[in-house]
């Protein structure tokens, strides 16, 4: 950017400033944000990463150690690299008769997959209706959906528990699945997305060609909603997988992955190495999800996904 241009557009004092900067070897560039940041930035980010991975790393290190090693490592992690003890501890966690981590894994997977598949399907269906179909009361009903978003959900725990008791669903996976089949956030998410992504002309063309409503949804709207659907599925899955409060209210003997964690202390008591190995095992699967779908997750958060 020439100083003459600056003088013309921003005035003489700005031009004087720009000249002074240029004399100091730091000219005003046309696009300051295109500058590459220095090493301090990367050092800071490295620290952020170190903090982010620290807890799981610490769990792996504790899990690789015996109790004596842990008590002796005053004020430090017992070691810096994992050892075979970690595998032995994993084996012991898998082998315990008090609970089965495989069953818990299966339960968690079943619940999370069902809940996210159903959330995506019903949210897309409702989103299609709200965004592209005309019907009486549409506006009011949509505002109702949005209004339900601010109800603090956990507050209804007690009556929900009483209901589950009546249904005979206490200690059944149904209690975890059915209330989560579709939510207001999903409906909102899909509606907003389809509003932009699906042209009216396509819907009308399908109608003219004699497609039924559902056919139109299935072959036109659903494919158009795919990116938003994938993000919604991902976040619903993570939310369901990590949820602890409601399962610990309504489950008794049936475990999901988060419910395994309090069991660890009960079963392995003061054997910290075993407990931490178990904690690592329980927390690891979602790391795989982050590695596989990290890009999508980042895009989803940045598009304004809400906490699960």
């Amino acid at each position: 950017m020439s100083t003459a241009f600056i003088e013309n557009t921003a005035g003489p004092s700005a031009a004087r400033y720009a000249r002074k900067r240029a004399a100091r070897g730091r000219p005003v560039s046309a696009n300051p944000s295109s500058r590459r940041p220095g090493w301090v930035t990367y050092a800071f980010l490295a620290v952020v990463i170190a903090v982010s991975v620290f807890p799981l790393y610490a769990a792996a290190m504790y899990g690789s150690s015996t109790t004596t090693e842990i008590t002796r490592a005053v004020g430090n992690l017992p070691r810096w690299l994992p050892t075979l003890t970690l595998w032995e501890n994993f084996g012991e966690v898998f082998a315990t008769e008090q609970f089965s981590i495989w069953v818990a894994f299966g339960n968690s997977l079943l619940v999370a997959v069902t809940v996210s598949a159903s959330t995506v399907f019903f949210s897309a269906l409702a989103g299609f209706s709200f965004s592209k179909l005309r019907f009486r009361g549409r506006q009011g009903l949509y505002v109702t959906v949005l209004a339900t978003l601010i109800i603090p959900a956990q507050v209804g725990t007690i009556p929900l528990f009483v209901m589950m008791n009546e249904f005979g669903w206490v200690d059944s996976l149904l209690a975890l699945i059915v209330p989560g089949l579709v939510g207001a956030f999903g409906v909102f998410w899909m509606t907003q997305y389809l509003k932009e992504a699906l042209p009216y002309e396509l819907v009308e063309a399908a109608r003219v060609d004699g497609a039924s409503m559902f056919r139109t949804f299935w072959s036109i709207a659903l494919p158009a909603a795919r990116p938003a659907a994938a993000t919604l599925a991902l976040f619903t899955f993570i939310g369901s997988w990590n949820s602890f409060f409601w399962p610990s209210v309504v489950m008794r003997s049936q475990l999901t992955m988060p419910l395994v964690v309090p069991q660890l202390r009960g079963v392995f008591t003061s054997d910290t190495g075993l407990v931490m190995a178990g904690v690592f095992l329980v927390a690891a699967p979602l790391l795989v999800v982050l590695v596989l779908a990290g890009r999508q997750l980042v895009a989803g958060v940045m598009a304004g996904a809400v906490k699960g």
Partner: protein
Amino acid sequence: MAHDLASPRPVRRVGWGQRISRWDFKLSPYLYISPFFLLFAVFGAFPLVFNVVVALHDWHRRTGMGDFVGLDNFAWVLQQPLFWRSLENTISIFLLGGVPQLFLALLIAAILDQNLRARTFWRMSVLIPFVVMPVATSMIFGQVFGQFGILVPNLQELGLLTDYSSPFFQDRFLSHVAIGSMVVFRWTGYNALILLAAMQAVPRDLYEAATVDGASRFRQFFSVTIPSIRPTLIFVILTMTIGGLEIFDEARLFDGGGTGGGSGGADNQWTTVMLYLFNLGFGQWQDRLGQAAAVGWIFAFIILIISLANFWLTRRISSADAAQPRPRRVRRRAQTPDLPTPSDITDASLEGVRR
């Protein structure tokens, strides 16, 4: 059929196919939104009403519904010192976890909002804590803050601690610091990405103009960036409030759960309201569902009030930041065009608050 053919009838009859198609056209919109409303009616709205019924009765987990007791449960809860203690704990943990989180998230977002190499890599790694199960974090932090952990022996070494056992499990304030740090750990990166998205939508020519006008990087951050991301900032603070006050996982497993643990400390140093509600209804020796339901109602009311106050405060503060009126264009551009943005949700949920 023969009779049908013989009888005279209007020529332009509406065929079955067409009739079905018209019903399809009229009813489908309602049919498609009905799953949400049905599910919400049963598992969202009904419990809300039913909560009042439970709270007005003597209700136990083992014996079920008992006598009608009026507002006794509410009075009982409000007279419990433990309820107030748990409310104080919750707010203290919320502040200790929320305030640093917000500043750190702003800092990280500002740092990510540069022309970085391997951009996606940094963004992904900031999200690691978000996918780590909160109960696992809680156990690990419990270990790190514990007697044989990392912090306590070093503090002893420095002479800052004389007691052998960990003060993070004794002292009320320190236990809140420990639990607050888990909250910071879990949500900072996530919120940083939300703020980053808003920052990237700020038109770059604003920065250009600011540079030309001689504004420093800091000045640009406070006079251009912050005012431009205002709606997102409000959104982040609002969701942080609702989520932060309902904290449960981190407090429950801080001392490992298992036998005897998990109730919030020997003196209830870190019992949060949700943990108190849980203990009342489902704790080892208790099954007071009526009182727990009353806690639920009172707490919902408190959350609503705090959220509204928070919203009002944030609005005032961030509009005071923007000293000069900005052109509307800027604010509108600060939203991503193709997907719903946080500010949409803020507007949406606020619409709900207002009615």
